[in-house]
């Protein structure tokens, strides 16, 4: 099998809030087309890790490479870097004053400077991909949570990113709405998109992830493919966490 291109590489990432050390030396890498899922108890820095990687929340220490090129943080450069990394939020964060279509278009017209017509076509294509074309003219408040999150995914996709990061994309959803979002994420993974996902959905992790990363207290405890990490974990903490999460969420 040919060696796939490395998309993202993170080395020794640190982040503290005051005395609270949220990230204590995280290293990971993702190759093209891979899906990596980060699991772990809440408050262990999983979301912080994603925002640090995107400099929405600049890390205190650590190095990050995108497609083999190291990111040197500067206000100007970072906007270009962010275009290449899609981000899907737990709270959706759709722009309240724009329709679904407007939400997907705004990055194309304002950041990538595409013509209106071209942007509209591209945006409609992405909405179609997540099954939201019928709701293109509706405003966020008129959509269900699941629909909003699908628009959020289309918004990230429209930028043709190298990878998309998902920050607990289904945590704010009612259980019956999770399926439509997870289905779309699965489809993306199968189409070869590179995904970095923070989630509690073990079903998704088992079925889709190439690798699962178990994180606790700002450190990576264990990493491995699902069959190993779920069925045959090495570390005691991983076993305890998996037991707890099965109790909580069931064996789907």
């Amino acid at each position, binding site marked *: 099998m040919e060696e796939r291109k490395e998309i993202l590489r993170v080395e020794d990432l640190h982040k503290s809030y005051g005395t609270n050390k949220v990230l204590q030396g995280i290293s990971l890498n993702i190759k093209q087309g891979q899906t990596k899922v980060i699991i772990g108890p809440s408050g262990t820095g999983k979301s912080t890790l994603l*925002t640090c990687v*995107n400099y*929405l929340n600049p890390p205190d220490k650590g190095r990050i490479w995108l497609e083999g090129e190291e990111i040197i943080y500067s*206000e100007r450069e970072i*906007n*270009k*870097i*962010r*275009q290449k*990394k*899609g*981000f899907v*939020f737990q*709270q*959706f*964060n*759709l*722009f*309240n*004053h724009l329709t679904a279509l407007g939400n997907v278009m*705004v*990055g194309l017209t*304002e*950041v990538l400077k595409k013509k209106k017509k071209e942007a509209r076509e591209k945006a409609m294509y992405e909405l179609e991909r997540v099954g939201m074309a019928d709701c293109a003219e*509706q*405003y*966020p*408040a*008129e959509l269900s949570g699941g629909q909003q999150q699908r628009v959020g995914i289309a*918004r990230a996709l429209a*930028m043709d990113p190298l990878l998309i990061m998902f920050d607990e994309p289904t945590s704010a959803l009612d259980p019956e709405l999770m399926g439509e979002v997870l289905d779309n994420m699965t489809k993306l993974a199968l189409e070869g998109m590179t995904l970095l996902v923070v989630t509690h959905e073990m079903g998704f992790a088992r079925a889709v992830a190439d690798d699962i990363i178990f994180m606790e207290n700002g450190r990576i405890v264990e990493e491995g493919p699902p069959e190993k990490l779920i069925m045959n974990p090495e570390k005691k903490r991983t076993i305890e966490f998996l037991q707890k999460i099965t109790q909580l969420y069931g064996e789907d």
Partner: protein
Amino acid sequence: MIEYLPGLFRGVIVTIKLGFSFFIFGFVVGNIIAIGQVYGNKFISLFCAGFAWVFRSLPALVILYLWYFGFNLSPFLAAVLALGLRTAAYQSQFFRGAIQSIARGQMTAARSLGMSKLRAVVKIIMPQMLRLSLPYISNEYAITIKDTSLAFAIGVVEILKEGRLIITVLHNPMDIFMIIAVIYLIITRGGTYLLSLLEKHYRIPGFEISN
């Protein structure tokens, strides 16, 4: 009586011109102050907050005199600047409140798409902020129109002054004052009605201010 109506009409024009000039001036400056206060660095933020506090705390008349006597301006220009800074200070605080009521995630999402901070403010934050502020703006508009009467004190011949001039000839203060009051009611009411149409036009489903 009829022959004096053109005088009143001239006054109405001056009142409207004055009101609109300084309202728009205040709108622009108010926006800048609000954005500076929320997104500026410590120094800019403090300066903007100080500006807003001072011009909200001073009587309009004191600001008027300072501009008029201090800078040797024409009464009309002094009135526009003085009353404009006053309304700018008030408007900046509505805008600031509106910005702060917009979820932080909106800014984060815009930045995650690769927008610069400035572009995110202009394209994402401001359109929402302006919609949220419309009811307050319409209230401030009414105050603006009423405040034009203060320009009387530095010699701008607006409707109240025209009225006083007529009264000195006709000696019928109550008739003239009542006509003037009705004119003010029409201008304030008419304007707030137009602004409410604007509010309706730009309304976004589910994005309303619970008032």
